[in-house]
């Protein structure tokens, strides 16, 4: 992204560096992606290159050891994790067993719904998933239609770092294939939503029927500089 064009006051378009400078130490940060598909690579690289620490990362997984989101752990920037699948990055179990980080596991569907719930103003919800298992320990139970359910709370974040395919200048977003995953959910569940996109197009050029995340949820739009 050139530093002048489209950068008038009030614009949501920022450089990756400016975007990351808005993140405070100790923040709860949602990061989109599933494995290495659909995570905001430029933002994660810039965060990993920063000295912003004590972070709670809310994400499906943590990439692989030293790769993608895994860099944040290797760098010692993480205090806590909330997510569901860390078997692709063995450094997580290691750091957890050494007492270096806290980890809260949430079943993947409950995790997705808890993020959505935060975005749509639902503080908690009941689900049958996980009832009786270690992941439901200490949580309230209630029976509905003969089935025991567990109360799960919404998951909110200070910042969401998401990946989309295209943004228009207002911040309407479209997604690409399985890179969509948690991104549209996280977009609505954080106080500050930063979207990294592949392409920024003029307002009016996206098919309104194709917009998945309406612009009101997006605060900053950024794009990787071409190398």
């Amino acid at each position, binding site marked *: 992204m050139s530093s002048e064009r489209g950068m008038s006051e009030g614009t949501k378009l920022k450089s990756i560096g400016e975007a990351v400078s808005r993140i405070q130490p100790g923040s709860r940060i949602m990061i989109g992606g599933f*494995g290495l598909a659909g995570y905001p690579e430029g933002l994660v690289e810039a965060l990993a290159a920063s000295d912003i620490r004590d972070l709670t990362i809310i994400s499906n997984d943590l990439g692989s050891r030293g790769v993608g989101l895994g860099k944040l752990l290797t760098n010692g920037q993480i205090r806590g994790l909330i997510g569901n699948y860390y078997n692709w990055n063995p450094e997580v179990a290691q750091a957890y067993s050494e007492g270096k980080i806290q980890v809260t596991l949430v079943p993947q569907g*409950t995790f997705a719904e808890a993020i959505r719930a935060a975005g749509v103003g639902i503080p908690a919800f009941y689900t049958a998933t996980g009832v009786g*298992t270690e992941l439901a320990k200490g949580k309230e139970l209630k029976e509905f239609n003969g089935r025991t359910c567990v109360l799960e709370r919404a998951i909110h974040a200070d910042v969401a770092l998401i990946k989309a395919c295209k943004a228009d200048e207002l911040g309407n977003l479209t997604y690409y294939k399985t890179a969509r995953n948690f991104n549209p959910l996280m977009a609505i569940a954080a106080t500050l939503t930063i979207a990294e996109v592949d392409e920024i197009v003029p307002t009016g050029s996206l098919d309104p029927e194709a917009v998945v995340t309406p612009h009101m949820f997006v605060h900053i739009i950024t794009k990787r500089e071409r190398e």
Partner: protein
Amino acid sequence: MTVTLPISEEQAKERIATRIARHFLEQDRKLVINLGVGIPTMVANYIRGGNIFIQAENGILGVGPLAEGDKIDRQLINAGRQPVTETPGCSYFDSATSFGMIRGGHVDATVIGAFEVDEEGNISNWIIPNGKQLGVGGAMDLVTGAKQVIVGMQHTTKDGKSKLVKRCRLPVTGFGEVDLVVTELGVFTFEARRLVLKEIAPEISLKALTALTEARFQVSPGLQPMALS
């Protein structure tokens, strides 16, 4: 007790996947299924015709064969992070919608692996607490939400221990959720929460299978040789 079977581990896995694919093909109707990693993913190799739609919880309905060569797109993967292809009529959606399909009972079956399945249809397949794993993924959502839970697993561990057990010893993923278990040695169903042997592999006698299986099971009056093909 160890039984040396005249089939290799690879053949065992293929047999399990083939038998589960047959279970779907026999129904001869439109089905939406979710396949876990390992043996369950292999089921896709034996599914023919356009009636069976594979859903992956990372947000796709209509998963095609694994992608190779220049077809590989790292933004198009299944839940096991393998690059896949699209089938005609494929669609994409976010993770909440994906698990809405699962939790909401819209997915006809999930095929998953397991460390243990017990006599009450409880399943342990999310963690071996050895300090090296930390992850649950969608396992709990899938066993709780899918209309039918099909376990595809080898009959014994690498040490020859039965994976069909009296009572799960590992942390449980879901209680009383399993409907069908297919191993290389037999096909079992749960009927009124009791384990019933429906089909038995040609290489093994009922006596030997009973000795090899920790869980107690009933033998179906209509016990059949395992349908292989």
